[in-house]
């Protein structure tokens, strides 16, 4: 794994994904080839780790395995296969992957690994549904990643939270597995109602696209949509999820330091990861 020059997340010890332990294993994915809108999310892992230095050490245990090698490859498939390998190693070692993106296309790798071991549900915080049409052979990207994830046999439930804005079609209905909670509906959603949407017999993977947050709070992202969720609301939801469900992995993606203002978006992303790690 790369990334030795960066501080580790929350000051956790450096480790190889091949080691054994418990708690979270941080994996950085400095890749943004799956984002067709803008470059810059590849700088996310370093920026989020830096921002996390200002936070206390969370209660949950963890190690930081650095960044996935091979992220400079120009094709997303190489990045996905390397990340899948790293995820496998981490899970085999008893860890839960805690991934820092990178663009959102990378989430396909850890979810595809985890759903092979046990049925899972996926919580998808995002301003977009990422459900653009995709056919076999077409390039993988952050616009259709959830559509591909939903087809994985071990993914039994998808909970999309944060859809909003003006779109060509009504994207509130993404298939039998999926429930969409718009950003507007999320304002009035209690944590109890949220958990009712997440069967407790499933393990859950939590994926957070930072653009779920309102861009006046988190401007450093490539496809901002106004009128988003408050950071405190997302933190409240995350705390409820990690407190009441088995979270087998999580990620924060699409932080784009190139577009950020005073690293405020990286700081919010770090705090969201901290909320997950602290509540485990």
């Amino acid at each position, binding site marked *: 794994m790369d990334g030795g020059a960066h501080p580790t997340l929350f000051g956790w010890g450096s480790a190889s994904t091949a080691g054994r332990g418990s708690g979270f294993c941080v994996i950085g994915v400095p890749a943004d080839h799956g984002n067709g809108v803008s470059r810059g999310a590849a700088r996310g892992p370093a920026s989020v780790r830096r921002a996390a230095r200002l936070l206390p050490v969370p209660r949950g245990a963890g190690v930081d395995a650095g960044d996935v090698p091979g992220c400079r490859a120009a094709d997303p498939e190489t990045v996905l296969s390397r990340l899948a390998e790293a995820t496998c190693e981490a899970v085999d070692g008893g860890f839960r992957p805690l991934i820092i993106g990178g663009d959102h296309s990378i989430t396909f790798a850890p979810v595809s690994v985890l759903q092979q071991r046990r049925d899972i549900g996926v919580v998808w915080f995002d301003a977009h549904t990422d459900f653009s049409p995709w056919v076999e052979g077409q390039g993988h990207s952050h616009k259709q990643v959830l559509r591909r994830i939903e087809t994985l046999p071990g993914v039994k439930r998808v909970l999309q939270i944060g859809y909003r804005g003006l779109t060509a079609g009504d994207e509130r209905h993404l298939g039998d597995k999926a429930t969409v909670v718009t950003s507007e509906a999320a304002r009035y959603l209690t944590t109890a109602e949220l958990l009712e949407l997440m069967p407790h017999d499933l393990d859950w993977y939590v994926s957070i696209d930072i653009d779920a947050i309102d861009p006046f709070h988190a*401007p450093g992202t490539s496809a901002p949509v106004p009128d988003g969720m408050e950071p405190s609301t997302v933190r409240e939801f995350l705390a409820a999820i990690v407190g009441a469900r088995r979270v087998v992995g999580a990620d924060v993606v699409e932080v784009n330091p190139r577009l950020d203002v005073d690293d405020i978006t990286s700081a919010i992303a770090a705090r969201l990861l901290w909320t997950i790690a602290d509540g485990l």
Partner: protein
Amino acid sequence: MLQCDVSERPAGGSVVERRYVVAPHLMLEAHDDAHAVVVNTATGARAKVSIAAFRMLSRFDVPRTVSDVFGRSDEGRAAARVRALVEHGLLWDVEVERPAEKPRRRPAPFRFCNAPSYSASGARADVVVLGVPYDLGGPENGREGLLAIRQKSLDYTYMVDFDARQPAGWFDAGSGVRILEGVRIADADDIPWVHGEPQRAVFERVVETLDELLPVDGVPLVLAGDASVSHAVATCCAGRHPLSVVHFAAGGAAAEREGESVTVYDVARAMTHVAGVRSVVTAGLREASGYAPPPGVTEVTATRLRAGDPGDLVAHLPIAERVLLSIDMGVVDVSTPPSGKGMSLREVRDAIHTIGGRHRIVGVVIAGLDPSAPLGPVVAIVACHLALQALHVATLRRVA
């Protein structure tokens, strides 16, 4: 495109003695071995001519007679071709006086939401988009704001339903309704603004152009450099029907005038003097302006809007009024994280819906966006949302 036939015609007696020159604003746009396409940059008109005709045209780059160019022996045959070029407006007779033709509109690099160009469908449009890059009425660098809004608007592509052949509109995930379905939008590019010309001349051009372009019930969406332009839009709209103006701005806009030009500081006061404008409500002020508004102007602060009944905003308007919406993007709170001092997108949008629920919105101005400012690109997206929401409210009744 005009197909210019320059085959030989009977020559008139006087053609050979007169001097001709290439029409001003004429440029070569494209050519191949057989034809050339020339465009009049003042009018946007294009003509396809043979290469032979284009070569002939090129020889009149300075005023010349036919015999100057072709010699005495060929002047008879050439005269017929020259006359054809004159008839198509490609060559001008130097001795004929004519008013200077100034370009009325200037092409914009992007069209709002990639909607059709006005020249293709504007006469049947429900909404006509016009850019006015004038920003000397305020302190901000707003002239580039139009470009930023149009560029960001490409994320919200205007599409026409394949079967119904009607504009598809957009789905608003927040409200769960489809907006602007069946509403035809056309982008009429920008008003040219020559730096140094008086504001009055620019504003007259805005009024004349809107008068010319707007269908009877058409709604203008004017993307302006700064909010002083709202004065010109109000002049046009109030010339059709009496109306009131709701002007969203962070600061008071009813200061004493300090010169002839309208500014963002006094545009509300100035608009009360426009024939047909019955009242002006300035909404969203971050704090009270500190001076007594003149007759016809009411001020509602953001705090009062937030705390009170949204109807507070419309209470100051006559019943069943036509309303011009003027939105200075400075009204939006762009602090990071939001400080709550300005209005959020949601608050402005709700206010627009409140106004539209009781009155008829007849025009929309979006002004005062500096894309180079921190969060400028995000504010451009907010501007797109506000424009589309305002147009939705404005066109709701007529489409229904």
